[in-house]
């Protein structure tokens, strides 16, 4: 298990390095925006990765609600945590990009806004997990995750019609992208996905370990003939 983990980590590292090289050197420079555009190769893959992780979180939460499987709970937790991190990356790279290109940090555009709302929802999920005092945290969290995921389509629809008078992303619309750029983008996405998986994996192992330790302590308390009562 740990050997496999190690090999996978090494591969991911290599892939990340290659993707970095591809993004910074191989990819052609965009005509109007210049080098700033290269942030694109981090911005978009992060967004896609975050979406995938949130989707897994939803699946795991539903599964947990039905089957009460502790592994599903850990998976949900881990995916939410890592997903929030990637979503944060999107929310940081976006404004960094927007500043030189649009001249502003933030605008209430559809895509920006929906990302922000998504981020808010999953941060509130993590808050619930931390603040919950009972042994039933997983149940409550799973319930919230389901509601949060259901909210996403509504966010999308409502924001679609929201303040349409404001600028759309400059590079929206799929077709017009340079194939070489697309190639680099996909490489980066693959690298990011592997990286996310790697982080989730190690976080999963950590959480597992933590719970095992707790369990062992609990077992210890059971055996203790006259435990530290009182």
């Amino acid at each position, binding site marked *: 298990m740990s050997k496999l983990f190690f090999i996978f980590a090494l591969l991911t590292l290599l892939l990340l390095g290659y993707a970095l090289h591809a993004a910074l050197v191989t990819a052609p420079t965009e005509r109007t925006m210049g080098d700033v555009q290269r942030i694109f190769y981090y911005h978009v893959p992060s967004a896609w990765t975050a979406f995938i992780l949130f989707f897994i979180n939803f699946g795991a939460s539903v599964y947990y609600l039905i089957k009460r499987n502790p592994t599903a709970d850990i998976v949900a937790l881990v995916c939410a945590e890592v997903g929030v991190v990637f979503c944060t990356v999107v929310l940081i790279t976006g404004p960094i990009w927007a500043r030189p290109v649009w001249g502003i940090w933030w605008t209430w555009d559809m895509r920006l806004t929906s990302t922000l709302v998504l981020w808010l929802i999953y941060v509130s999920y993590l808050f619930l997990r931390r603040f919950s005092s009972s*042994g039933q945290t997983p149940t409550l969290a799973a319930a919230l995750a389901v509601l949060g995921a259901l909210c996403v389509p509504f966010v999308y629809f409502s924001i679609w019609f929201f303040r349409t008078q404001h600028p759309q992303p400059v590079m929206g619309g799929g077709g017009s992208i340079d194939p070489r750029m697309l190639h680099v983008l996909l490489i980066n996405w693959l690298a990011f996905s592997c990286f996310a998986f790697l982080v989730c994996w190690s976080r999963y192992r950590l959480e597992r370990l933590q719970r095992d330790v*707790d369990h062992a*302590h*609990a077992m210890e*308390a*059971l055996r203790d003939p*006259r*435990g530290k*009562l*009182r």
Partner: protein
Amino acid sequence: MTETAPAPVITVSNLIKQFGRFAALRGVTAEFASGKLYAILGDNGAGKTTLLRTFAGLNQPSSGSLSILGASKFRDICQHVGYMAHPSLLYDEMSGMENLEYFARLYGIANRTRCAQVILAVGLDPALTRPVGQYSQGMKQRMSLARALLHDPQILLLDEPFSNVDVHSTTEMVRLLARTRDQGKTVLIVTHQASLLEGAADEFIWMEYGKIIERTRDLKRLEISAEG
């Protein structure tokens, strides 16, 4: 729902309940039969309340098995269990009668006389209009018992019903509970005043550190062994 005497009504085996790392119940194995009155005794923190709450479906056991009236899911038999806890479980703002009427609805009883009857049985006045929040401690305690008795349950789980109740009323209450037992019900009473139940209880159960240490019919023996 067999009411033949020997069949156990509650069966627990190796019940464990943990709060985080702390184990409040550390392997309880026992059977409780119908038509008996059990007194559960033990030092503070022994796990008596936790045991009762687990029976009442309010705590999920960490491990071990629990079966009440043959069902393993509490929801299926909750109609047949009456539970009295330490807090009154009553609305402070309503009078005793209003409280009971509301809880009666939850059990599908739409019968005012039944409510009045239980209030009388615990020695209170059904016509009292004062809200429960202004009752004295002992009056609250009795009203709480009335709530537990309301739907005439097969199994009664009572957590320290006699604390704060005056001496006369205590004997009344013991008599009432003994009568309930004689109707074939199972009565579990957690208390620190074992002597009150000396004549009435069929069995005394001594808990210590989350385990049942001893079960006996004779309170005296228990006291001797507990001292030692």
